[in-house]
C-alpha cells in the first residue's frame, strides 16, 4: 500500500514536469500549427540558466543569501528561454506557418545547433546544480512514506504556473486575443488583432515555460546538453493524447502518461514499461483519434 502511494506520488511528480513542457507545445501547435522540436533545448537553456545563476550567487553574493537563489533562478530561466523563443520565432518560425512537418525538421536542426552550442560553452559532461538547503529532506506523511520537498516544490510550482496560464489565457485581454486567433485566424485578423504579435508572444511564453521546466529539472539530477531530448518525445505524446486547443487536455494527457508510465515501469521494468505505455496510447487513440479534448470545428481537416 505504501509503495503504491509512493508510486502514485512519483507519477504525479513526473506528470507535473511533462505538463510544464507540454503546455508550450500544445499552445504553439494549436495556435500556429508549428511543431517545435527545439522545445527540448529550451528546457536545457532553462536548466543551464539556473546553473549560471547558482555560479553567480556562489561567487558574488554572501553565502547567507544562497538559499534564495532558486527563486531568482526560476525567473532568470523563464526570461532567458523567453528571449530565445522570441528570437527563434521572428527569425525562423514565422516562415514556416502552416507547414507543420517542415517546421518540425527546421526546429530539429535548431535544436542540434543549440545542443552543440551548449556543449562547446559548458562542456559535454553533465553538471550538477546544488539545491538550496530548504529543499532538502522530506515530508513524512505516514510510516515509511517520505515525500521529498523537492518533488513537492515542483508540483507546487507547476500548480502556480498552471494557474497563471489559466488566468492569462481565459481572463486577460491578451489571452482572449490568443484564443480568438487559435479559433479563427482570418476572422481575428479582420477584427483588428495583430496575429503576428500574438504568435510571437505566445511562442515566447511557451518557450519561457519550458525554461521554468528546465529550472525544475535541475532539482532532480545533474544536467547535460542533451537534457531536453529525454523529455521532448514524452511531452509530444502528452499533446497527442491530450489534444490541442484547451489547457485541460494537456493536464489530463500529462497525468495519464506520467502516472500510468510510473506504474508500468514499477510493475515490469523501465523498457517494457515504455512499450506498454505506447500500446495504451495507440489503443486510446482508437477511441479518440484527436486526443482527449479538442476544439469543435466544422472543417474537415
Amino acid at each position, binding site marked *: 500500500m505504501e509503495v503504491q502511494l509512493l508510486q502514485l506520488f512519483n507519477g504525479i511528480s513526473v506528470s507535473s514536469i511533462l505538463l510544464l513542457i507540454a503546455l508550450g507545445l500544445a499552445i504553439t*501547435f494549436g495556435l500556429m500549427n508549428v*511543431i517545435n522540436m527545439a522545445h527540448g533545448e529550451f528546457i536545457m537553456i532553462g536548466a543551464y540558466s539556473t546553473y549560471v545563476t547558482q555560479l553567480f550567487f556562489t561567487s558574488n553574493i554572501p553565502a547567507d543569501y544562497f538559499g534564495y537563489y532558486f527563486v531568482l533562478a526560476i525567473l532568470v530561466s523563464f526570461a532567458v528561454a523567453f528571449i530565445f523563443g522570441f528570437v527563434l520565432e521572428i527569425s*525562423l518560425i514565422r*516562415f*514556416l506557418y502552416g507547414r*507543420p*512537418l*517542415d*517546421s*518540425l*525538421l*527546421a526546429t*530539429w*536542426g*535548431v*535544436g*542540434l*545547433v543549440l*545542443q*552543440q552550442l551548449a*556543449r*562547446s560553452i559548458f562542456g559535454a559532461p553533465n553538471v550538477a546544480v546544488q539545491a538550496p538547503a530548504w529543499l532538502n529532506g522530506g515530508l513524512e506523511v505516514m510510516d515509511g512514506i517520505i515525500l521529498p520537498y523537492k518533488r513537492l516544490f515542483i508540483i507546487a510550482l507547476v500548480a502556480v504556473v498552471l494557474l497563471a496560464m489559466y488566468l492569462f489565457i481565459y481572463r486577460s485581454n491578451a489571452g482572449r486575443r490568443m484564443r480568438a486567433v487559435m479559433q479563427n485566424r482570418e476572422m481575428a485578423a479582420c477584427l483588428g488583432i495583430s496575429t503576428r504579435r500574438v504568435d510571437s508572444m505566445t511562442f515566447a511564453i511557451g518557450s519561457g515555460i519550458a525554461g521554468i521546466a528546465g529550472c525544475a529539472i535541475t532539482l532532480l539530477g545533474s544536467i547535460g546538453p542533451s537534457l531536453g*531530448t529525454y523529455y521532448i*518525445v514524452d511531452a*509530444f*505524446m502528452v*499533446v*497527442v493524447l491530450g489534444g490541442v486547443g484547451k489547457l485541460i487536455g494537456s493536464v489530463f494527457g500529462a497525468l495519464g502518461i506520467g502516472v500510468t508510465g510510473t506504474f508500468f515501469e514499477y510493475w515490469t*521494468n*523501465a*523498457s*517494457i514499461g*515504455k*512499450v506498454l505505455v*505506447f500500446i495504451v*496510447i*495507440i489503443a486510446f*487513440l*482508437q477511441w479518440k*483519434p484527436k486526443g482527449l479534448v479538442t476544439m469543435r470545428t466544422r472543417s*474537415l*481537416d
Partner: protein
Amino acid sequence: MELTAKASLQKKILLTSVYSIVVLFLLLAPTFLSDFRLSLLAKFLAFAIVAIGLDLIWGYSGILSLGHGVFFGLGAYCMGMFLKLEATGGKLPDFMSWSGLSEIPWFWKPFAHAWFALPAGILIPAALAFILGFFTFRNRIRGVYFTILTQALVIIVTTLFIGQQQYTGGTNGITGYQTIFGFSLSNQSTKTVLYLVTVVLLVAVFILCQRLVRSRSGRVLRAVRDAENRARFIGYNPSSYQLFVFCVSAGIAGLAGMLFVLHVGIISPTTMGIVPSIEIVLWVALGGRGTLIGAVIGAVLVNAAKSGLSETYPDSWLFFLGALFVIVVVFMPRGLVGLFNDIVGKLKPRMQTIMQAKGSKMKKAGSNG
C-alpha cells in the same frame, strides 16, 4: 502535340543514358576505388536504399515517418543474428553467456537458417509497419500526429533493445561476425561481391519504386497526398493505400539494414536511434522529396560530407547538420533536384524563344518564296 511527344522521348533517352552511365560507373567502381573508399561507398549505397524507402512514403504520400531507423535496425538485427549464429556455429553467442543465458532463446533459433533470416529482415519491419499503420491510418491519424507516434516508436524500440541485453547485446549490439555462407567477411573479394550485390539491389529497388509510383496506385497515392478528402469522396480508401506504401517502405528500409550490417560488421541501438532516423529524412529533403533519384543523391552526398567533415572536425559536423536542416527547409523545400529543375525551367523558355524566332523566320522565308 507531336513536338511534345518528341521532346519527352528525347528526355527519356537522355535520362536513361545518364542513369546507365551512373550504374556502369558504380559497377566499375571496385576497379579504381581503394578498398577503404569502396566500403564507404557500399555503406552510402545501403543508406541510399533506405532513403528511397523513406521517399516513397514521404515524397509520394506525404506521410513523414521518423521511424525508419527502427525498420532499418530491425533488418540489420535479423542479418546480425544470422551472421552471429554462423560465426558461433550454432552455439551460444558470447554476449548471451556473459548475461547468464545458458541456451539460445527460441526466437533466435530460426535465424540460423538463411531461408528464414533473409526474408525476415524484410518481413519483420514490414509487419511492424503494418501493425502501427493499421491502427493509425484507420483512424485518420496523420500528419504531425503520425510523425510523433513514429518517433515514439523509435524511443521505445531502442530502449527495449538496450534493456534486453541478454537477447540483443544491449548497447554494444551484435558484432563479431566472421563468414557469410562460408566466405570470410574480411576477405576483399567477398567485400567486392557484397558491394556489387548492393549496387544491383539499389537498382532493383529504384526500378521497383519507379514502377510503383508511375502505376495507377502511385497516382492514387499522390492524389491522397494532395487532397486526401477529395480522393476519399471519389471512392478510394486512402488508408489502405497509405498502409500499403508504409509497409513497402519499411521492408525496403529492412533490406537496407541487412546490407548495412554486411558492410559495417556491427549493429547497435545507436544506429536505429532518433538522430539516425531523422538524418534519413534530411537526405531525402536535401536531394529532393518526391523524386526517387533525389533520395539517392541526398543520401550519398550527405554521408560523403559527413565522413569528410566528421573525421576532421567532429564538433562542427553537428552545427553543419543543424544548419543544413534549416537551410533545406526554408530555402530549398524541393531539394537539389527541385533546384536543378528550376534552373532548367528558367533556361528552357529562353531556348524556346530563340528556336521559335528561328522557326518563324524560316516560315516567312518559305511564304515569300
